[in-house]
């Protein structure tokens, strides 16, 4: 069992190493087999682990090795397997496996095929570390690792400027969240002197509410970054620059849900911090609504899906924020299924259209690519929350919880969001598959259905989208809830809302009605009265433009953060060159001036003083030298005179009284 746990991330890791180091040496076929094969093996292991967990119902920790240690800090590279992890493992490896398979077809013939699979497998490794880690730091490895893979895969078409920019943006924005996450980790360590979940949660009760709030909010910053919530959501739509399987796997099914996973994992701390909970709920609710509005008018097929992803993630946050952790995970799972399905289908569309992504240039594809159409429709129905598709069950549960908890405003936001979701998803469907073809003729000739290797996984996902919701049936008491109960109940004292069936049924009705309303509106605008949409848009040009430009948030961030930072950089660079370096140069100059001054003094004071003396001497000598007659006699005469004087001096000096008796002394 322990071995099985360890093997889960090891398989993709081996594939990464083989493909990464030797990938150039062997054929693409071997490369992709290695890639999906390893993920498949991981999936099998995950299933094994899941079954074991299901059987024993015991969480277990597996330590790989001691990683960072010293002093009172010991961090192991260790894994925790509990029901939450199992769910995540299954979703990640399962969906991942399908997407890998799909990619074989989708990426066929692309430059850097091996590279793609290397990155994908690396992503799998990271994601598995993320969900399996038994402490915050292993989680963080995965957390940053998936960020890196996201960066690499968004930038897969690196020679496209937009892709390169999107990649950088994704990484940097994620980093902002990561910084928050790091702070949370530090706070946890400072308070608990350990980073292991089990120990932290066991001691959580000693924590003050303030500290719990601080930790929870810091964690939230991380989650917001990773899961693309307000205000850090902007990177996700841009991330659509990556290949479509990437969008499906990373930016829809798995990575972006890491924030949700993390919050649920830390629900013990959140439960202690009502303020943080409220914040989470509101962030989720706002995001759900906000992203949905933007999704209304987007024309890029993947962008619509991206905003819908942001919106759906908002639902999950909302669920977390009101304490419906199981519902959040449930929605996470179903969302993984149908969003992967939607993305992959969209990929199939794009594949069919040789890269065209603008829905305004599609239309009427139903006939040409029927399989894709059918699968896409399943996805749409699921996300719109139409009974009995998966999305219905999970979304409904969230909304029900909001209602039951008395969060009527949130409920209203969720409901409006659901309406909008249904609307824009069907808008997408209609624009893509129905109506008249708006394809440009050249593309139209080449439209073809995708190969089975792509359709196969789609079919599996479609089935899951259809049936996946039944794991949570009946609401609040389904198998899914019971399985997760071991995790979500920790620290909550078994407090559960007893919700009457009547209320649940009513809410279900309402939800379905809302979804159908959205569908209906979409049908009216894009199928029945196609010209109406443009008229409506023209009637509210500013609203339309604002929505189309995503509320100008990107520009706002640019103007408020990016540009000022660059300016600051330029200013500081100037400061560095002129002021700081200027001080240095100034010291040099001062030395130089000091030297000049000293030399001036040397010349005009020291030397000059001496020279003046010398010159005076010289001039005096000019007159006195007349004394030098050259006649020896004169010299002797002077000598004699001098001698005379000297003798008198000596006599005076030694005291005349004692006479000349020098020898006597």
């Amino acid at each position, binding site marked *: 069992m322990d071995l099985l746990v360890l093997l889960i991330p090891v398989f993709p890791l081996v594939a990464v190493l083989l493909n990464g180091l030797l990938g150039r040496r062997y054929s693409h076929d071997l490369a992709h087999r290695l890639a999906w094969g390893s993920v498949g093996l991981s999936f099998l292991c995950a299933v094994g682990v899941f079954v074991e967990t299901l059987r024993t119902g015991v969480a277990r920790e597996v330590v790989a090795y001691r990683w960072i240690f010293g002093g009172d800090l010991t961090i192991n590279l260790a894994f925790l397997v509990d029901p939450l992890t199992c769910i995540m493992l299954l979703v990640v490896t399962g969906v991942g496996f399908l997407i890998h398979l799909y990619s074989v077809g989708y990426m066929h013939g692309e430059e850097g095929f091996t590279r793609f699979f290397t990155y994908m497998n690396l992503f799998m490794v990271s994601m598995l570390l993320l969900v399996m880690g038994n402490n915050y730091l292993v989680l963080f490895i995965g957390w940053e690792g998936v960020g890196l893979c996201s960066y690499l895969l968004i930038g897969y078409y690196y020679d496209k400027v937009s892709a390169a920019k999107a990649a950088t943006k994704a990484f940097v924005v994620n980093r902002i969240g990561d910084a928050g996450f790091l702070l949370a980790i530090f706070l946890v360590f400072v308070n608990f002197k350990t980073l292991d979940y089990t120990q932290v949660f066991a001691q959580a009760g000693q924590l003050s509410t303030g500290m719990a709030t601080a930790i929870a909010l810091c964690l939230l910053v991380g989650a917001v970054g990773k899961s693309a919530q307000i205000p850090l959501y902007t990177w996700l739509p841009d991330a659509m620059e990556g290949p479509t399987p990437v969008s499906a796997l990373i930016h829809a099914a798995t990575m972006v849900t890491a924030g949700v996973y993390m919050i649920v994992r830390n629900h013990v701390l959140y439960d202690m911090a009502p303020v943080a909970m409220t914040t989470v709920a509101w962030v989720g609710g706002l995001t759900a609504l906000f992203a949905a509005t933007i999704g209304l008018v987007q024309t890029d097929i993947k962008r619509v899906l991206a905003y819908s992803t942001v919106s759906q993630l908002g639902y999950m946050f909302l669920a977390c924020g009101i304490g419906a952790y199981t519902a959040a995970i449930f929605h996470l799972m179903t969302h993984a299924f149908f969003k992967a399905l939607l993305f992959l289908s969209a990929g199939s569309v794009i594949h069919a259209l040789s890269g065209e992504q603008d829905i305004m240039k599609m239309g009427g594809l139903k006939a040409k690519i029927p399989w894709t159409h059918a699968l896409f429709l399943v996805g749409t129905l699921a996300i719109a929350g139409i009974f009995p598709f998966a999305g219905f069950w999970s979304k409904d549960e969230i909304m029900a919880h909001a209602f039951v908890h008395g969060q009527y405003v949130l409920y209203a936001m969720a409901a409006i969001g659901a309406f909008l979701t249904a609307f824009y998803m069907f808008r997408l469907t209609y624009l893509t598959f129905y109506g008249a073809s708006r394809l440009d003729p050249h593309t139209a000739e080449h439209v073809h259905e995708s190969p089975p290797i792509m359709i196969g996984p789609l079919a599996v996902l479609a089935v899951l989208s259809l049936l996946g919701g039944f794991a949570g049936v009946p609401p609040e008491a389904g198998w899914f809830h019971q399985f997760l109960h071991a995790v979500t109940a920790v620290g909550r004292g078994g407090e559960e809302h007893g919700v009457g069936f009547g209320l649940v049924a009513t809410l279900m009705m309402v939800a379905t009605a809302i979804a159908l309303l959205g569908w209906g509106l979409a049908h009216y605008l894009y199928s029945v009265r196609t010209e109406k949409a443009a008229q409506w848009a023209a009637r509210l040009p500013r609203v339309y433009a604002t929505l189309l430009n995503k509320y100008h948030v990107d520009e706002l961030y640019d103007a408020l953060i990016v540009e000022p930072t660059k300016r600051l950089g330029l200013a500081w660079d100037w400061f560095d060159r002129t002021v700081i370096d200027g001080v240095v140069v100034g010291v040099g100059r001062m030395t130089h001036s000091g030297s000049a001054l000293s030399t001036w003094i040397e010349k005009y004071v020291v030397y000059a003083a001496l020279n003046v003396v010398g010159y005076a001497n010289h001039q005096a000598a000019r007159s006195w030298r007349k004394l030098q007659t050259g006649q020896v*006699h004169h010299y002797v*005469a002077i000598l*004699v*005179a001098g001698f*005379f004087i000297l*003798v008198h001096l000596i*006599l005076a000096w030694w005291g005349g009284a004692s*006479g*000349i*008796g020098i*020898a*006597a002394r």
Partner: protein
Amino acid sequence: MVLFFFVYFSLVSIVAGVFTIAFRNPVHCGLALLTLLLHVAGLFVLLNAEFLFAVQIIVYAGAILVLYLFVLMLLNLKTEQRYLHTRHAIILFATAGIFGELLLLLLQSPFSGAKGDAPAVAILQDGDSFAVGIKMFSDYLLPFEIVGVFLLGAIIGAIVLAKTPTAVDAEQE
């Protein structure tokens, strides 16, 4: 007796000195100088300095003066026409005056002092030469050697100076 000799030697010395500077013919001057030297030697005898007496005669009268005379002969100098300039008279008197004063000073002095370790009795016992020799080669060895070197230097110097310039030297300069 001693007094007589002293007076004799003194007077002759002084007169010879005056003649030395007074004669016009340099050779005469030389001869006067010779007289002076000999009489000074006599004074030395009076002072119990026999060794010095001998040296005075041999070195001064014998060697140095002969050197002078040789040079005089060699150069064949003419008699000076006029040697006493008027303005020199001032010098003469000034000098005489100065020394007159010095003489007075000297004569006023008591010349008293501690006696040395060489009283006349002791010198006379072994003779002056003996005493000089002992002193010279004990306490004054170093100055003696220096004087020796000095003399050597002087001789070499004289030779170098008086040497007739050769062709090689000229070339070097």
